[in-house]
């Protein structure tokens, strides 16, 4: 066992190593004219993230060495913002907290992050002719890793917000990485701004929580202190203004909902999911790391981290569960009709994140975290696999121009198939276990309408199998639909691309056994306490009362999930392998619903029409041109000026007579008047 000092200080290394790498790149890019050689860039970037992974492992190791009950390490680095004394005192430190939850997250972030850094070396080498651009990419990637690690390691809400905004920034920078393209730049800003709407909720929640804690004399922003003092405010209510219907709301519900707005923005849930599909404009490794494996799970992490709050806020939890369920099915439906390989995966991510919220809303925090981790592996695998396909086809992303790739890219085909099977819930793979846990949590929960939630989850699982196999069939099987000159040059990418995929495929298959549900531990493998992930996480996650299910029910639930998957697979097989002409004919027959799907229910267009355009128009035509220019500056200011001028030319001119006596008279009269008025 490591001694106390180093044991905790290792925590700060985890985020600071990537930060140092990013800072190095930043200084070299900004202030040194000469480009840094690629090898140096690679060594520093990948080295930093790998070292961070090692540090995470060391931290994890010292965490599990701890005796039960003291499941955390705190590393207090310095006092960041300190303001006020007494009951209003506020202080936020740069302090890191490693508990089982953040430990799992750091391992996933640095582990998957390292693989994606390595993958990016090859991917971006192919893309960027320019050394500076290459370095810029890794600068952003390191900065992202830093922010994400701060987000999960922060011991207080304010520092977490730093990471929260930081990942949003890096997402913006990386989506718009090829900024010369108008569309990419647009997508980047869109992501940042939609995220900011979520951040608005996060901040409101934070302020509301803090001020309620001030009211009971316990101001704090640290998670542990909040948890300790939360009982003092669980009964508090908030008077609702008349125009909102009046009455009183439970304060914790309001706070939790505010935080959930933040989570909805970051994790791309209804109605703020619109940025994520567009985020696919970024380089594919970015889509894998940020927009699938890590950043977008931050919202789920927030809800789990604040589980103690959501656990006592039943209404908010119900909203979380329903939002998750509806998003899951909504995005899955849209994914069916998408033709861009990355867009399908993007909607699938939105849908899977919906699952995670469904679990968290039902109180299945362990299930949510389990799915966060397993999803990180299989979705990163799918995205990187898609990247490999895109590279093989020389930056072709349209499914309509793919097909038959399994011959030309056999290794990609195999790992991609593993990814598809995992997400579709093939028994024994990690996605099967984690999704099963979520459906069980929904089924067993006590929130109103939980059977509906379960039903939606189950249906989504069928849809997932359908659109994922559709994707797989269209990409790898059938006749190649690529243009002739591309067909000539389809090559499977090199080792740096493929090896990270192997590692991810390994975890996609076997990670599930870390969180093996007890039912399988008992029935199949004959081990006690098989769900080591849940046991590990249990002490830090909130517990919500739920119905106990017996093993028979759980087996039936699993059977239902498998059936849904098989049905989805069957339909996909029928439509895209047996009758490949059929989908087109159906699309032609059902033109309007099909268009609705292809155009993603016109949500983007509706937002544009309802919010963006009116806001710009009102700001320009009313606020600026009418109020500012015409009323304030023209009427008021200009009016006073004209009045003064008129008075001057018509009246006061006579006063300026040139007679000294008159002047003196008015001066004295004025002075007397003032003194009289003031002192009477």
């Amino acid at each position, binding site marked *: 066992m490591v001694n106390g000092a180093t044991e905790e200080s290792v925590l700060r290394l985890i985020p600071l190593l990537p930060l140092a790498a990013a800072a190095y790149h930043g200084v070299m890019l900004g202030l040194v004219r000469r480009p840094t050689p690629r090898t140096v860039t690679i060594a520093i970037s990948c080295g930093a993230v790998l070292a961070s992974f090692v540090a995470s492992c060391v931290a994890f190791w010292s965490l599990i060495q701890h005796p039960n009950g003291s499941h955390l390490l705190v590393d207090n680095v310095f006092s960041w*913002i300190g303001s006020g004394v007494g009951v209003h005192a506020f202080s936020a430190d740069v302090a890191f907290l490693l508990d089982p939850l953040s430990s799992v997250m750091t391992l996933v972030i640095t582990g998957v992050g390292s693989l994606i850094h390595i993958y990016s070396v090859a991917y971006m080498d192919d893309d960027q002719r320019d050394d500076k651009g290459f370095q810029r990419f890794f600068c952003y990637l390191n900065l992202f890793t830093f922010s994400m690690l701060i987000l999960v390691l922060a011991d207080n809400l304010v520092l977490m917000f*730093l990471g929260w*905004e*930081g990942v949003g920034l890096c997402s913006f920078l990386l989506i718009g990485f090829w900024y010369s*393209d108008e569309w990419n730049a647009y997508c980047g800003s869109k992501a940042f701004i939609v995220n900011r709407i979520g951040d608005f909720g996060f901040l409101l929640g934070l302020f509301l929580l803090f001020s309620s804690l001030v009211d009971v004399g316990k101001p704090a922003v640290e998670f542990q202190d909040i948890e300790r003092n939360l009982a003092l405010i669980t009964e508090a209510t908030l008077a609702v203004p008349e125009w909102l219907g009046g009455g009183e709301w439970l304060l914790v519900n309001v706070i939790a909902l505010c935080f959930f707005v933040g989570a909805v923005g970051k994790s791309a849930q209804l109605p703020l999911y619109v940025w994520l599909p567009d985020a696919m404009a970024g380089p594919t490794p970015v889509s894998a790391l940020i927009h699938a494996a890590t950043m977008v799970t931050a919202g789920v992490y927030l809800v789990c981290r604040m589980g103690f709050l959501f656990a006592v806020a039943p209404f908010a939890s119900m909203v979380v569960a329903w939002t998750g369920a509806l998003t899951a099915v909504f995005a899955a439906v849209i994914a069916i009709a998408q033709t861009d390989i990355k867009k399908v995966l993007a909607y699938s991510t939105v849908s899977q994140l919906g699952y995670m919220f469904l679990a968290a809303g039902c109180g299945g925090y362990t299930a949510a975290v389990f799915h966060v981790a397993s999803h990180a592996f299989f979705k990163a695998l799918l995205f990187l696999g898609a990247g490999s396909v895109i590279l093989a086809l020389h930056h072709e992303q349209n499914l309509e121009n793919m097909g038959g790739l399994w011959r030309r890219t056999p290794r990609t085909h195999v790992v991609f198939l593993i990814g598809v099977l995992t997400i579709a819930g093939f028994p024994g793979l990690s996605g099967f276990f984690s999704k099963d846990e979520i459906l069980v949590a929904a089924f067993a929960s006590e929130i109103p309408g939980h059977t509906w939630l379960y039903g939606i989850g189950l249906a989504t699982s069928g849809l997932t199998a359908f659109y994922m196999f559709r994707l797989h069939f269209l990409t790898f099987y059938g006749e190649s639909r690529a243009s002739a000159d591309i067909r000539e040059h389809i090559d499977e990418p090199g080792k740096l691309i493929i090896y990270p995929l192997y590692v991810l495929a390994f975890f996609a298959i076997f990670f599930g056994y870390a969180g093996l549900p007890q039912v399988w531990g008992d029935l199949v493998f004959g081990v006690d306490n098989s769900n080591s992930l849940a046991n590990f996480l249990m002490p830090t996650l909130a517990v919500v009362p739920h119905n106990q299910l017996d093993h028979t029910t759980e087996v039936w639930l699993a059977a239902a999930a498998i059936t849904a998957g098989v049905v989805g697979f069957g339909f996909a097989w029928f439509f895209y392998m047996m009758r490949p002409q059929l989908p087109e004919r159906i699309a032609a027959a059902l033109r309007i619903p099909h268009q609705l799907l292809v155009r993603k229910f016109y949500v983007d267009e509706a937002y544009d029409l309802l919010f963006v355009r009116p806001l710009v128009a009102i700001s320009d035509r009313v606020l600026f041109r009418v109020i500012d220019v015409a009323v*304030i500056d023209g009427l008021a200011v200009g009016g006073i000026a004209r009045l003064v001028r008129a008075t001057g030319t018509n009246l006061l001119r006579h006063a300026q007579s040139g007679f000294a006596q008159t002047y003196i008279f008015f001066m004295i009269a004025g002075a007397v008047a003032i003194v009289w008025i003031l002192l*009477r």
Partner: protein
Amino acid sequence: MGPIEPFLLSFVTFFPLLAGVGLLLIAALASWIGTKGLPDSLWKSVGLASTLATFGVSVRLFVEFDATRTGFQFVEHLSWIPEYGVNYFVGIDGISLLMVMLTTFLVPIVFIASWDDIRESIPTFVFFMLFLETGMLGAFVSLNVFQFYLFFEVMLIPMYFIIGIWGGPRRIYAAVKFFLFTMFGSLFMLVAVLVTYLLHFEQFGALQFDLVSTTGESKALLDTVIPLSGQIVDGEPVVWWKTQTWLFAAFGLAFAIKVPMFPFHTWLPDAHVEAPTAGSVVLAGVLLKMGTYGFVRFAIPLFPVAALEFTPIILALSVVGILYGSLVAMVQTDIKRLVAYSSVAHLGFVMLGMFALNEQGLNGSVLQMVNHGVSTGALFLLVGMLYERRHTRLISDFGGIAKPMPVYAAFFGLVTLSSIGLPMLNGFVGEFLILMGGFLAHPPSAAVATFGVVLAAVYMLWMYRRVMFGPVTNPENRSLIDLGLREKLVMVAMAVPILWLGIYPNTFLLRIQPSVIELLHQVEVRTALTTLPSTEDVALLAAADTAADPAADPNREPQP
């Protein structure tokens, strides 16, 4: 530095002006003996050197400032016109310390930044800048209200000329507008100052402009009881006249115009758009802070009850300013005008935090004054750099600038992020504390203001995207040259406070904190003093205070 030790603050204040006057004298001497005067480069170098020296000495102030003490430090008090209570009285607390630092930091940067920008009448420009610096510093360190008023007005003169001489096409209009707006407000303030002065005389029988007393015994303006209700005329109170309310309104109007708060802001976009870069930076960076500083130093402590009375109005105007400023900024076509409107929004935050009247809000407010000075100053510097190259500021003339000017784009990005309050950069800390303070005092206003963080991202990023990203459509932009060494130096210098204030704001918060607590204490004490039940009690209290001086009977009849 030995001999200047007791006059450190005066040295900081007057050294720029002295250098300017010295240069003038030498130039006059030189032309008298027949040479062509001093070369422009000498003017610029000496100007820069003297402002750098000023900054150096102010760093010493910062280091030697005792953050554990409340009250004013580095105090100097000299009789000037003692019969009328006009004294030379300077001193700084944590709040004015930061304002002084901001000023001395920005002026040398402005010198470096406009090294090649100003091409005409360089000696005049240098002189006015030095003059302006002394004017601003003088206002921040003044503890005598008369002296403050003097500096407050005097700095208009160099600023007027800086806009009027080196400005854009509509510079005269903008300069006059700027001048008239400020004069208009400050005349009200002058009357209010005189009334306060006379009230002090009524109560203590002495004429005094000092804000605080230098010794425990003597009385200063802050000891004056400012009555709430009107005076008694023939036994009947004058209903419409509420002394404290009207005095606060007069001070408030002067400062609100300077801030500028909605709806007194329309001089600002014009002044910014027409001013040369140097003018814009100083205007946004320092001059606007005169308004917010005036509230903190004078209006709130002198008239605390009225300040509370006005709080709903000021909060409403601040929140409107935040939302309105952001939305109007969003639709601007000229980058400088956009930044000007963003200032309206940012200063709305400053006012919101200030009128939360609690520690978080005030700490954040003071910090945000500095942050705004740095971020907006940096934005104007960047806009100026682009203007020097392309002689346009229209967003539509650009696009894809990040390609030819990557370093410029990077710095612009950093400053943009600081302006929209990204954590780890300066803007966040101030905004966060302001909103937190606001939430503790007036949750609904603060909640609405929080939406300002979304809008800030909208207008800044939209502008950034249209200027920096996309393809280079305008061929003139293709051959733009990236930042040179001088410009990089300027931007690196600006990046230092942006990062420092964001990562370790406690250096500054520690120094602000005692002054803020002192201010809140003053507000409490003076509120108690003025809200005593009846005028008789006020009279009794004042009489007890001035028992030694029988002439100071506050209830005496006006002299015929």
